[in-house]
């Protein structure tokens, strides 16, 4: 059953520094797997010692709570460092890469073999090779439990976040693997594998010609590309329901695993933002050190490097590592300076700082096509919740964000459940956090609510 969704609500954060459609190969010397990238990971344990050598696909850590899922090395080389933080919490496993990558070998199949594979053998190959963490479960947005069977699987084939990479471009020529990945996933779910296409533009055949899947189109501004928003309208999650989601990168990685028998962690990422000299795409591997990507490529010194996009990403240092699930590095100016109220503070008219609102002096709405250069300033102080009606305009779901947030603040389980906590993860309410007049940390609140419910 195909659906064509037209979503009206949302907001576009149009930023300067879009990536040019050009890719340069630029592998890094070191790579890192960070347990903090995996939502719901409880007790990560490293499986190797510093100095041990690895191949691409060699397990390097696992979570004691679900010990069948392996997190494997993206490249071949040796374990350079195991970084621990407070109370010996595992923060990073760093790998020094060889110049030529060697791969662990896994079982190889042809596309037609895949349909006859048993669920057990598929799950086993996926969990031991390192592709399993691509599968994220809704509710809660955590890595899926291999022993469960979801009612359906969703793949959003476009990203509407600010400065997001163009999936049609970065996954060009991967048709074969995407198709194989979908075929494998089909074996894992009770219901359909939904492939959701961007309804705003002409779509690459990689996604639109896929067989054995339920193809939907979704049009609208951000957050139309967020997979959970699509799920909400196509096959909503109620209490007790289980849906899995996979990014196209993961689907292709799974496809390659089964067709080629290797764990291929190479990925094309966008390096973007107003402070990047030459915003473009680079080919590297999962967990890459970002230093080589930024070297001689920055417009200024006082910057913030973000792994991911400006709504849901994480601030990282200039010589740190790309997040496991991220396809972009965004660099914006750091905004840590006071602003005098008449010259550039709360009473000054401004057309250069973007606003969803049109309150006195906020003029960005006059120029909707403008590409903004935004810095990391809070643009105000945290205050009590007073304004209503705005959150609802940027959440294209039948959910009452204000009430849900208040229920989370109050720690009221029944209310959270009744108001739809199962249907949200942080990213769908990220726009609320952006436009919030009272400057609350709404995404971390949502995660708190999810953690409360999961307990």
């Amino acid at each position: 059953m195909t659906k064509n969704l037209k979503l009206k609500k949302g907001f576009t954060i149009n930023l300067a520094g879009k990536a040019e459609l050009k890719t340069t190969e630029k592998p890094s010397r070191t790579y890192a797997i960070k347990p903090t990238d995996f939502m719901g990971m409880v007790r990560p344990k490293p499986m190797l010692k510093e100095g041990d050598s690895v191949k691409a696909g060699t397990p390097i850590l696992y979570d004691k709570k679900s010990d069948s899922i392996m997190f494997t090395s993206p490249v071949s080389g040796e374990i350079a460092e195991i970084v621990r933080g407070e109370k010996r919490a595992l923060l990073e496993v760093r790998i020094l890469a060889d110049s030529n990558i060697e791969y662990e070998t896994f079982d190889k199949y042809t596309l037609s073999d895949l349909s006859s594979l048993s669920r057990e053998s598929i799950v086993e190959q996926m969990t031991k090779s390192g592709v399993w963490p691509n599968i994220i479960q809704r509710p809660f947005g955590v890595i899926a439990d291999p022993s469960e069977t979801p009612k359906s699987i969703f793949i959003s084939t476009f990203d509407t976040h600010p400065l997001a990479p163009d999936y049609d471009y970065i996954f060009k020529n991967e048709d074969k693997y995407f198709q194989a990945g979908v075929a494998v996933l089909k074996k894992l779910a009770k219901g359909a594998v939904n492939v959701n296409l961007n309804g705003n533009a002409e779509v690459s055949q990689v996604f639109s010609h896929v067989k054995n899947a339920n193809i939907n189109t979704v049009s609208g501004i951000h957050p139309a590309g967020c997979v959970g928003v699509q799920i909400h309208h196509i096959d909503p999650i109620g209490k007790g329901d289980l849906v899995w989601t996979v990014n196209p990168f993961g689907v292709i990685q799974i496809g390659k695993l089964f067709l080629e028998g290797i764990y291929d962690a190479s990925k094309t990422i966008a390096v973007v933002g107003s402070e990047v000299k030459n915003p473009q795409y680079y080919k590297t591997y999962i967990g890459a050190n970002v230093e080589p990507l930024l070297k001689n490529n920055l417009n200024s010194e006082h910057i913030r490097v973000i792994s991911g996009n400006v709504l849901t990403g994480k601030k990282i240092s200039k010589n740190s590592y790309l997040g496991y699930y991220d396809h972009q590095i965004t660099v914006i100016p750091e905004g840590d300076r006071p602003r005098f109220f008449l010259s550039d503070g709360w009473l000054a008219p401004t057309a250069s700082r973007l606003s969803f609102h049109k309150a006195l002096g906020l003029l960005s709405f006059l120029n909707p096509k403008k590409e903004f250069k935004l810095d990391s300033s809070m643009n105000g102080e945290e205050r009590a919740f007073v304004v209503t009606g705005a959150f609802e305009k940027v959440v294209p779901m039948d959910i009452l964000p204000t009430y849900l947030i208040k229920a989370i603040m109050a720690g009221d389980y029944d209310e959270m459940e009744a108001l739809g906590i199962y249907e949200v993860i942080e990213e769908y309410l990220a726009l609320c956090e952006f436009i919030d007049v009272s400057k609350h940390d709404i995404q971390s609140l949502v995660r708190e609510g999810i953690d409360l419910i999961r307990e």
Partner: protein
Amino acid sequence: MKFLEDILHKQRPMFEKGGKLEKFYYLFEAGETFLFTPPTVNKNTGVQVRDAIDLKRMMITVVIAMVPCLLFGIWNAGHMHFLAIGQGEASLVDKLLLGLQLVLPVVIVAYAAGGLVEAIFAIARKHPINEGFLVTGMLIPLVMPVTIPLWQVALASIFAVIIAKEVFGGTGMNILNVAMTARAFLYFAYPAEISGDKVWIYMNEGEKLADGFTGATFLGIAASASTDGTNVVQTASTWNGGMYDFMNMFIGAIPGSIGETSTLMCIIGAAILIFTGVGSWKIIASVFGGAYLTAFLFNLIGLNEFMLMPAHYHLVIGGLAFGAVFMATDPVSAAQTERGKWIYGFLIGFFTIIIRITNPAYPEGIMLAVLLMNVFAPLIDFTIVQGNKKRRLQRATV
């Protein structure tokens, strides 16, 4: 502005934890953030960029929207005085100067008294001073008669901030609109100074009303006309040389509270609020709609002359417009769901007219209608939210 920044920077440690004036941190914070938006940046996780808006800008937008009403009110205070003593031809400057002399102290006292309470609570409760008071402090004077004794303004502001807001836990938690509570408090505690025929126009000692002039509001006239059984519009049109002509009442050169007389200025304010998205157009439109429809229904019933008064007159008399635009739209005390806003606004309009026509003891209905609906707003929202929950539940069982 570097020198200001430096001064503040030097003082800061004194107010921070362990400093001598630690207790007064939030006073310092209020002053500092007034001058400078702090250099705070977003955390490592969560959004990395933020909207340019902050609460101060939002609130100042509402204050700006009230300025037309304030300016008109200042002029009107002077104008009414000169008209009443038979010198209506006095110059604009004279009228404005007198108006300023009368209105400014009321504004200053409201801000000072309410602000003081806010500050004390901020210190005692250790929470930031909320910019919402910028709005409340301006709303209170605009719903007072020009002759109001200043001590009453102070008392009402203090009462309202404490009872309507702080006892509920401060800004964002209050159930009642703070400014309306201030007015209701005076209305019931000191009715002589806020109702009747004598309070709307300032008179110097010894000055007498010009022949045939009355200080009564149109609502007062309408209420008594209906008991006399005379046609309201016709009766009123003979008063004060055509002052109660529809157009004149729309413009607002009539007796009444300082900021409420001019429907035109309220509409300008509404335009600002709606354009900037700060005020809910749904609430404003539905208050007017509810009032008009109810008045129209009374036209059809037509038991007395007040009921027979043309429905559109209700929209320009009394405080309906001001209440619809500035009081009903207070986001904290209003309904918060979008559908709830329609119902909430409509019922405010409905009750305003009911109170006006059927309750001769209170000629103005908007004040009580807003307070009443403030109390019911959570109930309206509850029903709407319940609907949302039910839809979710139904899906789950399929």
